[in-house]
């Protein structure tokens, strides 16, 4: 239908179904880096419901969720686990500071994985994340 967003790849649809069943925070981006969904557990950490936040281009979510290195310097998309998963197409794990849409600054551990639908086709990325402490490995 004209003007309607294109059909999502089945891997993203199933990822969203998985996310809705998890108590672990999960964030899903499409192949262009566009935020397409996060679950209720992520809403607690990101500070806003997905219904309120809506879909966002990569520039949108990387600026709205203020992300910093452990030393407090701003973290570029290329350094974020989610960015590495999308741009380098490999899994990545790391810790970072994030200031959510509720203004709270939290230390997070993030594991991001690219979604390969075939050997060469990445259709998106999922990132699982949880609150951490400086002492956690």
């Amino acid at each position: 239908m004209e003007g309607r967003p294109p059909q999502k790849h089945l891997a993203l649809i199933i990822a969203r179904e998985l996310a809705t069943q998890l108590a672990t925070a999960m964030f899903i981006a499409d192949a262009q880096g566009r935020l397409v969904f996060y679950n209720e557990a992520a809403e607690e950490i990101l500070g806003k419901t997905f219904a309120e936040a809506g879909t966002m281009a990569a520039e949108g979510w990387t600026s709205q969720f203020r992300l910093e290195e452990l030393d407090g310097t701003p973290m570029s998309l290329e350094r974020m686990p989610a960015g590495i998963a999308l741009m380098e197409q490999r899994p990545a794990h790391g810790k970072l500071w994030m200031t959510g849409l509720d203004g709270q600054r939290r230390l997070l551990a993030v594991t991001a994985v690219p979604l390969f639908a075939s050997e060469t086709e990445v259709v998106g990325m999922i990132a699982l994340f949880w609150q951490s402490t400086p002492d956690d490995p």
Partner: protein
Amino acid sequence: MRFGGNTPCVEVRTPNGGLLILDAGTGLRQLGEQLDTDCPVHLLVTHLHLDHVEGLRFFAPFWHPERELHIWGPPSPVHTLEERITRAFSPPLFPIEISDTPAKVTFHDVPREPWELEGVRIEAQTVSHPGPTLGYRISSNGTSMAYIPDHEPVLGIELADLEPEWISGHALAEDVDVLLHDCQFSEGEYPSRVGWGHSSVAHAVAFARRADARRLVMFHHDPNRSDDGVDVLVERAQELWGDSSEDAPVAASEGMTLELS
């Protein structure tokens, strides 16, 4: 027997006389014997569960050296369609290797973009069912049909709560004249079969309605269901459909013919 009898296999004749066959279930054996044309055969397979490929080995054109067969279907994320089908055509499952069959067989991993076959437009997309599984949409001269025989459109989410682009298979079925769709379970049976990859009658109707399909043909009957049991599902589908027009849901049956114009 009024319904069923064979596993999925649907013959499609295109306006230019071309032959497409949707799935290679047990009905394919009988179809192969009745074929009245020597034109190339295009077999469009949704997935490789046995009920959808069981007839392939007994399809007469496979055993004629002059026949041209094109088999279209889903690759897995790591194996081509040919590699995957070859397994079903080799010992111990079958005595003869596929490379030893006489017909001229070409395998095609379905393209990501729509393509033309025999003068009609084909679109294939992966849909929600265990293992790599496709649904097909066939369009020609302003008419269209969708074939999604094995499909569990939502898992753990209400269909009504999803935007169309998040509903598995929606783009295939949108605004089609006829939708052949999975309707294996009753609403009472479904809760104990979640994740099996099939729809309840409520799913089938809700999916068809969300896609604005004009007619629903209930497909993939449970092999244990009696004819009377299928009648009960049809009554329920018509009740859920909500109006008593001529286009109310019907159950697919052996030999059923639908003409789209």
